[in-house]
C-alpha cells in the first residue's frame, strides 16, 4: 500500500468510526423495552474509543513496518464493516419495532432457564428466528413481518436453548470425536467410488465437516426438544407448521448449514414428548378434563392433532433420503446420542417451573374466556374475588387448542386468526403485568 493510499484508507476508517459513534449517540435517546439495549450502546461506544487508539498506534508503527501497518489498517476497516450490524440490531430493538407485549414474558422465561444472561429482543427481515450470544447477553431475532403471530413465537423456546446445549458438548464431544475420526478414515480409504459425496482428501477437513454435521444435528434436535419441554405439544404444532413451508427431507450439507432434515426433527420431538415427557398420560387427563367441562370439540381436536403429527412424521426418514454414505453414518452417531441429549434437556427445562406439564389444569378455564373473545390472561376460580395470573405456557396451549378446534371445523379464516393472535399476545402481556403486581403487592 502506497503512503497516499494508506492515508486515504486511514481517513476513511476514521470517518466511518465517527459516523458510527454519532449513530450510537442517536440510539441513546430511543426507547427500548429491554434494559440491556443501552448497555450494548455503551459497550459499542467503548469499542469505538479503543479502535481510535488502535488507529493512532498503527499510524505510528508504519515507519518500522509499512506492510504490517497496512494489513492492520485493512483489518480495522474489516472490523468496522462487521460492526455495522450492531446498528441494525439496536435500531430494530426499539419499542416500536418489537412485539413489546411479549418482551417482559420472554425476559422472565430467559432469566429462569438462562440465569446470568440479559436478553435483547430485536427483529430481522429474515423469515426466521435466530439467537446470538456472547459474554452475559443474548440477542433474539424475530421475523419482522409476522411479529404479531404469537403462535410462531413459540419458536423462541427453541432459540433460548442454543446457549444451554453448548454445555452438553463439553462432555459428549470427546466421546464421539474418535468415532467420527474412524468413520472419516474409512471413508478416505474408499475414495474414488463414483458415488462418493466428497472429493476432498484431507482427513482434517473431512473430520471438521463430519463434526459440524454431527454437532449441528444434535444442537438443533436438542433445541427442538427444549421448546417441547417448555411448551409441550404446542411447540410441535408450531415446529410442524414452520417446517411445512420448507423441504422436509433436505440433506444436511454445508449449503443448508448442516441443518438436520425437518422430517427427522419432528419425528425426534414427537418421540421425546412421549418417552421423556410422558405426554400420553398427561394429554389423556387433559382430554378428560376438557370433556367434563363441555369442551368436547377441543378434546377431539387435541387427540386427533397429536396422532396426525405422529402419522405424518413417524416414518424412518433418513434411510429413504438422498444422504450419502458418510452422512448416514454420522447420523447413526446422532441417533446414538439422542437419549442422553433428551435427559440433559429435561433437566435444564425443569428450571422453568411453569412449563406446560405443570400448567395443564389452567387450560379449561382459559378456553372458557377465549371462546368469549376475552384474553385468556387470568384464572378466576368459583366465587373468589381475586384471580390469579395465567402462565405463558397455559395461554399458549389454550390458544393452540382453540386454533385446532377452529381448523377442524373449518372456521379459521384470516380475520379469526388475527383475532386469536391478538388475544394471545394481549393475554401474555396482561398476565405478566398481573403477576408482577401480585409479586409487588405480596411484599407490602
Amino acid at each position, binding site marked *: 500500500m502506497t503512503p497516499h493510499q494508506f492515508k486515504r484508507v486511514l481517513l476513511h476508517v476514521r470517518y466511518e468510526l465517527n459516523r458510527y459513534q454519532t449513530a450510537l449517540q442517536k440510539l441513546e435517546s430511543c426507547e427500548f423495552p429491554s434494559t440491556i439495549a443501552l448497555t450494548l450502546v455503551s459497550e459499542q461506544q467503548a469499542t469505538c474509543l479503543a479502535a481510535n487508539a488502535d488507529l493512532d498506534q498503527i499510524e505510528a508503527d508504519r515507519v518500522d513496518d509499512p506492510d504490517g501497518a497496512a494489513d492492520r489498517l485493512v483489518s480495522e476497516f474489516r472490523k468496522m464493516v462487521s460492526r455495522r450490524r450492531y446498528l441494525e440490531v439496536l435500531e430494530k430493538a426499539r419499542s416500536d419495532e418489537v412485539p413489546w407485549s411479549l418482551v417482559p414474558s420472554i425476559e422472565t422465561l430467559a432469566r429462569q432457564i438462562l440465569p446470568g444472561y440479559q436478553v435483547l429482543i430485536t427483529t430481522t427481515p429474515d423469515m426466521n428466528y435466530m439467537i446470538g450470544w456472547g459474554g452475559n447477553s443474548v440477542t433474539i431475532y424475530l421475523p419482522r413481518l409476522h411479529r404479531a403471530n404469537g403462535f410462531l413465537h413459540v419458536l423462541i423456546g427453541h432459540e433460548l436453548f442454543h446457549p444451554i446445549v453448548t454445555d452438553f458438548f463439553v462432555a459428549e464431544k470427546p466421546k464421539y470425536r474418535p468415532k467420527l475420526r474412524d468413520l472419516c478414515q474409512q471413508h478416505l480409504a474408499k475414495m474414488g467410488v463414483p458415488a462418493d459425496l466428497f472429493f476432498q482428501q484431507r482427513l482434517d*477437513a473431512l473430520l471438521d465437516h463430519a463434526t459440524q454435521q454431527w454437532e449441528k444435528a444434535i444442537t438443533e434436535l436438542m433445541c427442538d426438544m427444549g421448546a417441547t419441554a417448555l411448551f409441550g405439544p404446542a411447540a410441535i404444532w408450531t415446529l410442524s407448521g414452520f417446517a411445512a413451508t420448507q423441504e422436509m427431507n433436505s440433506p444436511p450439507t454445508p449449503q443448508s448449514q448442516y441443518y438436520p432434515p425437518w422430517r427427522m426433527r419432528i419425528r425426534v420431538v414427537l418421540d421425546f414428548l412421549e418417552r421423556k415427557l410422558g405426554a400420553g398420560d398427561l394429554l389423556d387427563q387433559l382430554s378428560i378434563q376438557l370433556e367434563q367441562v363441555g369442551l368436547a370439540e377441543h378434546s377431539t381436536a387435541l387427540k386427533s392433532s397429536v396422532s396426525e403429527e405422529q402419522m405424518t412424521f413417524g416414518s424412518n426418514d433418513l434411510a429413504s433420503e438422498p444422504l450419502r454414505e458418510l452422512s448416514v453414518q454420522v447420523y447413526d452417531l446422532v441417533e446414538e446420542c439422542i437419549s442422553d441429549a433428551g435427559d440433559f434437556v429435561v433437566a435444564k427445562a425443569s428450571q422453568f417451573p411453569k412449563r406446560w406439564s405443570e400448567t395443564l389444569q389452567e387450560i379449561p378455564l382459559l378456553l372458557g374466556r377465549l371462546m368469549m373473545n376475552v384474553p385468556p390472561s387470568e384464572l378466576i376460580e368459583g366465587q373468589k374475588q381475586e384471580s390469579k395470573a395465567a402462565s405463558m405456557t397455559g395461554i399458549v396451549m389454550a390458544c393452540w387448542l382453540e386454533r385446532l378446534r377452529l381448523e377442524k371445523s373449518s372456521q379459521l379464516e384470516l380475520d379469526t386468526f388475527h383475532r386469536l393472535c391478538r388475544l394471545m399476545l394481549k393475554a401474555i402481556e396482561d398476565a405478566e403485568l398481573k403477576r408482577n403486581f401480585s409479586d409487588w403487592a405480596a411484599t407490602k
Partner: protein
Amino acid sequence: MTTEDLRRIDELVHSADMAVRVASQLRLWIKRNQLGDPDSLKESLRFLDEALSGGRFVATGDVASASSSLSPLTWSADIRFGFAQPSMPSPEKKQYEELVDFLGSIRETIDNVLSNTPPQAESVESAARFFSQLGKLLGGKADSALRSPAGGTQMLQDRFSYQ
C-alpha cells in the same frame, strides 16, 4: 435458526485480526527489540494450542485432544499443505506430525518473545511469515463472507465439492 453465519464471520474477522497483529508485532520486535502489543501474542498462543491439539488428534487419534476446535488446524493445514485437489493424495500421518512440529516451533518462538528469551531472528521471521499468510487467508474469507449474508455457507466450499 441460529446466527451461525454471524458467529463464523466473527470468528474469521477476529482470527484474521489476531494474525495480522501478531505478524506485525513480530516484525516490529526484530526492529525495535521491544513488544508493543503482548496481548496479541498471548492470543496467538491460544490459537496455536487449539491447532496443536487438533493436529495431535487428527494425526494419532489422541483422545485427550478430542474436544478441540478443528478450525485453527484446518486453516494452518491450508497454509502448510495448500488446498487439496481431487487428484492429490490425502496427507499421511507423518505429514500431520510434521505440521504439529512446525506449529510447535512457532509456539516456542512466540513464548520466547513473550518471556524475553531472545529467539533466533530466523525463527521469528518464519513465525511472522506464517501469521502473515494466515491473516491473508482468513482476511480473504472474512471479506467474502461480509459481502453477502450467504457468505457464511460459502466459506466452507473451498474445502468440499459435491456431486
